[in-house]
């Protein structure tokens, strides 16, 4: 279910007469992974030095109130039963109440998630649009200045703390040059101007045909999205380069040249076609990585997404919110992996 799994796994699983058992196996391992993920969060919740009962009833509650809540939460039951309850709750999308604002955590997450999705999606788009061609050219012209550039871009990307780069970007492009909007999703004058349909402000403002808000929202998102995009660019370009190098030395490339094809066609119609499958995995992984990277980015840019949500909850010891957020992000990780596995099978004739 994880990236490294497909190399050996996908091909064996694909043997057609066994496809039913194979699918069951796949589904089974997905289920086990998800269960494990929920289990780890559950354990973390148990270990947390916060008394869940006290957190609900408050310090001054009487012993009887305390006991009532204690039994209501099922804390008298064996741990395994408690875990069962927890799994059941998670499956129903019930992460409990936020201790901070007494609202269901699931609702809060649904509210903040589109902001993260919007940011990460735009970021990964930057990464793909720039990173793939950069990686391809770096591989085809190995050793050229473009290859060196790609190397430096990747090295810097792997070495720079994202939150610091965000601060620097804010300082230069907002503070000094004034080219982009500051922290937040829109300027304060535009807040809540467009009705929230998808929760993604770029989409919402387009749906509302409110171009002023669109422009303002874009000026706010462009910096954090390019930052995230830079990190995914570093990763995608590096991986693209090494995949392409491998393909360009393959014999079928000589075949294409013998046919009299131009180098452009050889690269894009033959070699690139062969790395699409691997690229999908890389892009899915980098997308997942951006969801993670957005935790720190969102804080720098006061972006009201799931990263901000988890961190705020963490600092105010809002256990349910932390665990809920962690489970959701983890599940999205797994789903992205499954998704790339499926696309793998669509695009690679050998894996069907």
């Amino acid at each position: 279910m994880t990236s490294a799994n497909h190399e050996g796994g996908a091909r064996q699983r694909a043997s057609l007469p066994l496809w039913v058992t194979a699918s069951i196996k796949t589904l089974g391992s997905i289920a086990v992974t998800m269960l494990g993920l929920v289990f780890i969060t559950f354990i973390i919740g148990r270990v947390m030095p916060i008394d869940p009962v006290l957190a609900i009833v408050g310090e001054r509650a009487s012993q009887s109130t305390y006991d009532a809540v204690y039994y209501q939460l099922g804390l008298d039951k064996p741990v395994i039963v408690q875990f069962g309850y927890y799994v059941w709750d998670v499956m129903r999308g019930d992460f409990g109440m936020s201790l901070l604002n007494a609202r269901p955590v699931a609702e809060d997450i649904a509210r903040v998630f589109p902001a993260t999705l919007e940011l990460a999606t735009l970021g990964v788009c930057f990464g793909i649009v720039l990173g793939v061609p950069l990686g391809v050219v770096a591989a085809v012209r190995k050793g050229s200045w473009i290859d060196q550039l790609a190397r430096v871009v990747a090295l810097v990307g792997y070495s720079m703390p994202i939150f610091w780069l965000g601060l620097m970007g804010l300082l230069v492009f907002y503070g000094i040059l004034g080219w982009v909007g500051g922290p937040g999703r829109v300027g304060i004058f535009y807040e809540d101007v467009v009705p929230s349909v998808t929760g993604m402000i770029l989409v919402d403002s387009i749906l509302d045909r409110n171009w002023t808000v669109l422009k303002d929202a874009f000026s706010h998102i462009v910096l954090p999205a390019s930052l995230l995009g830079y990190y995914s660019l570093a990763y995608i370009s590096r991986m693209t380069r090494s995949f392409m190098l491998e393909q360009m030395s393959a014999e079928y490339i000589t075949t294409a040249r013998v046919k009299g094809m131009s180098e452009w066609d050889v690269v894009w119609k033959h070699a690139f076609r062969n790395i699409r499958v691997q690229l999908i995995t890389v892009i899915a992984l980098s997308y997942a990585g951006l969801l993670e990277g957005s935790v720190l980015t969102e804080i720098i840019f006061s972006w009201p997404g799931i990263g901000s949500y988890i961190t705020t909850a963490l600092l105010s010891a809002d256990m349910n919110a932390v665990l809920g957020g962690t489970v959701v992000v983890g599940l999205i990780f797994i789903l992205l992996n499954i998704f790339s596995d499926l696309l793998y099978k669509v695009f690679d004739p050998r894996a069907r």
Partner: protein
Amino acid sequence: MMEPLLDVEDLWVRFPTRQGVFDAVRGVSFTLGRERLGIVGESGSGKSMTGRAILRLIRPPGMVEAKQISLGGVNLMDKTEKEMRAVRGQRISMVMQDPKFSLNPVMTIGDQIIEAYRQHNRASKADAYAKALEMLEAVSIRDPDRVMRAYPHEMSGGMGQRIMIAMMLIPNPEILIADEPTSALDVSVQRQVLDIMDKLVKDRGMGLIFISHDLNLVADFCDRVLIMYAGRIVEICEADKLSEAKHPYTRGLLNSLPRLDAPRDHLEVLQRDPAWSEAPSVSGRL
């Protein structure tokens, strides 16, 4: 023999390495008419490099130098890369060793053959498809419709190589370079693939350069044989007179092979003489 199809004169292939320049092919000269010319040598003898150099497929940092590689009186060395592309496939084509690697694994066979045809011929998709079917039939593939839709990994080695031949002959080139075309195949299908290739080459009046490490096979199949050693041609023979070869390397090769008609208790081990690689190349030009 009349006007040769291809005239190679003083061909060098060089690769810069950390220890200095390595000469893979050193001053090789030969001509090719409408014949089957065999090039035999052990691995590293420069035989494959010779084939690739003719198509100017040696990639930098490798370098190709030659007085001339002339195709129908035009020197290929003077052509630009763009002009070379009109030569590749359309006038000189090449079949490589292993169809497992030389066919693009993620494209259907049909697409790959059609692509080879449309690269040099203006044809509608439907015409190209019909042409490709016809070509697959010419290499004795039954059920060509199904094969057109199939992917390379669904084919056996013998079928893959026949597909490769079909693909390389569809633009109707004058010369085919076959670089160890049967080495990766099962012995049982080797002959079949060779026969198909032979027939097509003969019917179309093409020239064939057959590169192999298998002396017996080449002697059987070709008209003339060049024997390469350490980047040079050490001897040239008519294939049917191979047993009269004089060069000690050729003799050594022959003696190290078991023969049904003259069984021996001990096969000789090839003794190498450093002088072989020093001696100048023998010219294979007619």
